[in-house]
């Protein structure tokens, strides 16, 4: 289990560099591994964080990833200052995507990200709106 509490990590999600999108998720995963967090939880964090990070890159024009690891929970916040989500209820539906063909060619944009995030978190708090950017706060409980 996570021995250290209140560990804090921050990463930039660079809008210029598609190839390094996902690096924050990778770093957080490595840290959780080192801390000896349960593998099943690590996988859920990795899945949700990566999908959110990719969203911030492809839809949000880049942003920030912040991870806080406590003894009883992991909190991941992915935020961007992009165009925001107009209809969140629609966006949460499987298969709904506004991604371009170009994004699809890169392996994303099937409209599976947000539903998969929802499936893997214990708590999900989304703040978004047209022109307001998007802020996803994901909480994972530790036992």
């Amino acid at each position, binding site marked *: 289990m996570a021995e250290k509490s209140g560990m804090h990590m921050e990463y930039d999600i660079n809008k210029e560099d*598609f*190839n390094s*999108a*996902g*690096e924050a*998720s*990778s770093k957080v*995963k490595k840290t959780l591994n080192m801390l000896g967090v349960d593998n099943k939880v690590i*996988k859920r964090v*990795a*899945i949700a964080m*990566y*999908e959110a990070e*990719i969203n911030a890159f492809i839809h949000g024009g880049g942003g920030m990833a912040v991870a806080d690891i406590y003894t009883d929970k992991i909190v991941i916040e992915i935020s961007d200052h992009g165009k925001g989500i107009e209809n969140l209820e629609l966006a949460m539906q499987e298969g709904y995507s506004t991604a371009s063909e170009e994004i*699809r060619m*890169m*392996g*994303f*944009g*099937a409209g*599976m*990200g947000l539903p*998969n995030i929802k499936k893997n978190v214990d708590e999900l708090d989304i703040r978004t709106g047209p022109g307001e950017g998007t802020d996803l706060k994901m909480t994972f409980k530790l036992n």
Partner: protein
Amino acid sequence: MRVKEVAELLSAEILYDEISNDERDFEHVVAADLMSEIMLDTAEQSLMVTGLINPQVIRTAELMDVYAVVFVRGKEVSAEVTELAKDRGITIMSVCQTMYETCGRLYEAGLTAGR
């Protein structure tokens, strides 16, 4: 099935061979060009088969604990992808066959769906 056996079965060219993966036993296959599909759920000891060749394939593999990736249709893999695979300890190989044939052969050899 070991990396060497997979490579032989598929007449694959190994692009990066991570020694520590030699002893791994691959039992399942996940195959997709969409990384979001791989992110849905992937069993331990899965091999990934994909037609996508950008670095996000390696990132997806890393995050899902997939230690070997097969690129289909003999696509040219960039040095950046190879370097990232090396850095993340992921074995990568390339085959000439299509996704269909590659999966068919792996299925015939007894590997099952990775989710």
